[in-house]
């Protein structure tokens, strides 16, 4: 079971009590002093972030360094851009489909691995391989497999009687192709987390259900699913946030193309600010994405805390 953080106050009171003779100021400052180096690094990261927000209110471009404020004009420009709605759609479509498939497939794989089976034991070890290879490298391998002359995916499709696909080269299947790579890479993550959840369950309630002759679906809906909720939320927190901001796979596959088929917020921000050198103009995409991720992840983390307490009631 994923435990809620043990109450650190226990440790604290014992540490403080035994040191009452020391000057209290130093003792009170100690946790800050210990964390100070990390705080300095944090400031080094926060500074560019704050600067980024400030620059998003200017018309700054690398080619035309101009820091006079134009206030919300860059944001207005983003919303009025003819591609804005489509970009929103692709960003969300990618995130929802990748996370959804990973969750479902990961759950099936986890439940199948959580059985007394020799094959399951052997296969489980290899589960981590896809996750450990750099996303860019993985995407390049898939791109090679999808390639018409050297690739292997079309011959495989043909051998089972299906027609060849043009994969990421045409708009119709481009999103499918990148989501496929994302699913390949991160389904093991979902499966591993959910498997850890399944293995942490107390056996008691399941024994009782079996004795009472409960069906598989009844046990799944009323025991497995509620107890698994905190773990499902962990998978969603990591995978949904990561796929909202996915850059590597899309960039390595098509750089956002064909045309602007895969121009998500991240790709648009990169293309505008870095490739086209219009620094300020691309920033609103990154900042809006940041705000969405910040609030959604906070909400999900809160849900996770609630689900954890609720699941603890079952054991």
């Amino acid at each position, binding site marked *: 079971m*994923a435990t809620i953080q043990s109450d*650190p106050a226990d*440790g*604290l009171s014992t*540490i403080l009590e*035994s040191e009452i003779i020391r000057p209290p100021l130093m003792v009170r400052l*100690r*946790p800050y002093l*210990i*964390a100070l180096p*990390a*705080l*300095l*690094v*944090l400031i080094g990261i926060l*500074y*560019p*972030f704050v600067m980024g927000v400030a*620059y998003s209110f200017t018309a700054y471009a690398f080619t035309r360094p101009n820091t006079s404020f134009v206030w919300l004009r860059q944001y207005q420009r983003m919303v009025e851009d003819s591609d804005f709605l489509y970009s929103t759609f692709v960003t969300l479509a990618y995130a929802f489909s990748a996370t959804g498939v990973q969750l479902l*497939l990961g759950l099936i*794989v986890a439940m*199948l691995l959580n059985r007394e*089976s020799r094959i*399951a034991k052997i296969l489980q070890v*290899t589960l981590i*391989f*896809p*996750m*450990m*290879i*750099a996303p*860019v*490298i*993985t995407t*390049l*391998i*898939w791109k*090679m*497999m999808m*390639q018409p*002359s*050297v690739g*292997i995916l079309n011959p495989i499709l043909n051998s089972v009687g299906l027609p060849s696909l043009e994969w990421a080269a045409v708009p119709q299947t481009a999103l499918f192709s990148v989501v496929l790579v994302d699913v*390949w890479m991160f389904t093991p*993550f979902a499966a*591993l*987390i959910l498997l*850890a959840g399944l293995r942490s369950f107390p056996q008691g309630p399941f024994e009782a259900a079996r004795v009472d002759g409960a069906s598989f679906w009844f046990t799944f809906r009323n025991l497995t699913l509620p107890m698994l909720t905190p773990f499902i939320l962990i998978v969603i927190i990591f995978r949904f946030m990561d796929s909202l*901001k996915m*850059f*590597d796979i899309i*960039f*390595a596959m098509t750089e956002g193309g064909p045309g602007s088929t895969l121009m998500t917020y991240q790709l648009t*921000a*990169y293309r505008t600010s870095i490739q086209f050198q219009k*620094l300020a103009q691309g*920033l609103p995409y*990154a*900042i809006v994405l940041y705000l969405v991720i910040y609030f959604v*992840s906070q909400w999900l983390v809160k849900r996770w805390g609630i689900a954890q307490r609720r699941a603890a009631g079952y054991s």
Partner: protein
Amino acid sequence: MDVRLRKVLTSVLSDGFLILYFLFALFPIVWMVLVSLKSTNELFTTQFIFTPTLDNYQAILFGDARAAAGVIAKQEFPRNFMNSFIVSSGAVVVSLLVGVPAAYSLARYDFKGKENLAFTFLSFRFAPELVVIIPLSLIYRQLGLYDTYFGIIWVYQLVTLPLLIWVLRSYFEDISPDIEQAAMIDGYPWYRIFLQVLLPLVRPGLAAAALLAFVFAWNNFIFPLVLGASHVQTVTVSALGYISSAQAFFNRMAAAAVISSFPQILLALSIQRYLIRGLSFGAVKG
């Protein structure tokens, strides 16, 4: 009898589905190895029957004298590999130095703003990287940090520091405060307790978290893409160059992919026991 038959049938179907999934999961890796062993002549012909050759590895690692002009980029591979190694291990060392004490502080002391601080570190794990690196690309140019090891190691803290702080915090919290109390009664000052009692206790978790942070840093792409150029170019950025050049070098690219991803698979296998906690930032104690 009927029940037993159904049981056997479910078990066969389940194993069948698992095998199908793992074929899907492992096939690209196997294919990558196969292609890396193909000579350029055989690249376009029979898919699976061929005479394996190590030419691609030789070309990648030692440069190819017969290479055409367009292959120059490929001879950079050893240098890119070293760059990846330098920035990834540099980033992990910096994160360890500043992150281990911070994790201890967050786990053991109760102070104002503690949870906010912890969540600020975590929020950078989820933030879209561009929100920080677009402004950084300007700041780095002004400070002369663009395309330097220091600049890349600094920005890699976004990847390695939240991971180390959160995972280590959960390991520190697992240790009973009684142990520290006993040492305190014996008159040890807090820093000696930290160094001599607590650190040895979390060492396996610490090593695993550091290795995982190394893998994540190694796999990063967008930071060196935006903030680096030829001087610090890593394997992930240079890999992109292989595929955009002629298709005839797909086998080279595959060899480069094998060399740069197998060390990580081995690392991951060695820390398997700690992997779930690391991947979930301490949330799931698998």
